[in-house]
């Protein structure tokens, strides 16, 4: 039916999904139609278009997720400052998602970086349509990375593909080291977890960095975990270096005619790859 939607039927789950098989007539005489499409088919379609748009401009798109107030905007502000002092800098643009207010986009614009605000009203997550609309307003010319700051929420954003390439999740140390175990969908999907507000570790006696990392590994997620403080400028170098590596990695993929997808699990990747041809 369509090539890019990745409806998550894989070789691994096919026997479960298709158990029972097709049956043309139900007992009541109605007609049964086998569909096997992702529940968010339309969104995923739009997301694939967004990704093509990013790829055409060779711009790496990063979905920033966390609970409300974990320091996403503060991280972006500190990133902008760090890039100003860096010799081999790259340039960024920002899409801000919030329930209400233009505050976060304004904080970014105050630092002379292009920022588009999406206000979602009652929606607790961004979707590919909202990002698509924002992309109409954001010129990708000359950018290396677009950060999409999602609505502060550890549940809903994880289910919606925006057309981004990587997921970065913040876990501020005041939230507790058990959050990956409580929000497995979100933390399983992150390509990098940042333990933010790390300057507060000294005053918190119950946040155990090792335990936080263990909880992430328990989700079969091998992605790196960094400690970082945007306010006290701790760990920014590792973060900036990681971003540089990701730009390289992404451009390498583009050169061989491939895109990059948030790495959740191998099967999902193979499926997407197979469907991309």
């Amino acid at each position, binding site marked *: 039916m369509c090539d890019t939607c990745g*409806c*998550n*039927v894989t070789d*691994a*789950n096919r026997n*479960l*999904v298709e158990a029972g098989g097709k049956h043309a007539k*139900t007992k*009541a*005489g*109605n*007609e*049964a*139609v*086998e*569909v*096997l*499409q*992702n*529940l*968010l*088919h*339309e*969104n995923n379609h739009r997301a694939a278009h967004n990704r093509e748009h990013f790829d055409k401009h060779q711009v790496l798109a990063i979905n920033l997720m966390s609970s409300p107030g974990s320091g996403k905007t503060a991280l972006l502000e500190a990133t902008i400052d760090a890039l100003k002092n860096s010799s081999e800098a790259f340039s960024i643009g920002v899409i801000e998602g919030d329930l209400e207010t233009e505050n976060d986009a304004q904080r970014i614009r105050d630092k002379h970086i292009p920022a588009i605000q999406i206000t979602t009203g009652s*929606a*607790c*997550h961004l*979707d590919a349509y909202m990002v698509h609309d924002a992309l109409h307003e954001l010129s990708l010319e000359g950018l290396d990375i677009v950060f999409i700051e999602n609505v502060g929420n550890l*549940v*809903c954003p*994880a*289910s*919606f593909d925006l057309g981004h390439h990587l997921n970065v999740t913040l876990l501020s140390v005041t939230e507790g080291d058990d959050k*990956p*175990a*409580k929000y*497995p*969908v*979100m933390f*399983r999907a992150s390509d990098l977890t940042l333990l933010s507000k790390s300057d507060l570790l000294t005053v918190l006696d119950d946040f155990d960095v090792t335990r936080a990392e263990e*909880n992430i*590994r*328990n*989700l*079969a997620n*091998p992605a790196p975990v960094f400690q970082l403080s945007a306010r006290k400028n701790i760990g920014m170098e590792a973060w900036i270096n990681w971003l540089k590596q990701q730009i390289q990695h992404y451009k390498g993929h583009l050169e061989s005619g491939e895109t990059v997808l948030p790495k*959740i*699990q*191998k*099967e*999902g990747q193979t499926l997407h790859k197979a469907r991309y041809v």
Partner: protein
Amino acid sequence: MHELSVCQSIITQVAQIAHENNALAVTKVIVQIGPLSGIEAPLLEHAFPIASAGSIAQDAALETQILPIRVRCNICGNENEAAISKLLCSACGSWQTSLLSGDEMLLKSIELEKSEEQAHV
């Protein structure tokens, strides 16, 4: 809660398929979700009547089938069921596993009511 958005997406797809099949109504919608999809079955079932009101699926029953979380160990090859926040190998204890099932969010099938003549063609 994003389950309402998910339901709206389901209704859009279902309405399109019903239309393509010249159906009078949709009588049943079967979805399959895994615990790691981020979609809660009770919330989905609660949102469905709201999202389907006034659509061709307004009288349809929603059936949600929950698929198990299963992993395969990348180290020893063992396959086992796992808990949502412990995707570990039950044989060697490794966390380096691949998910075999449990993150699905699938519109599996739908049932359509057709007019008498069509049903007999």
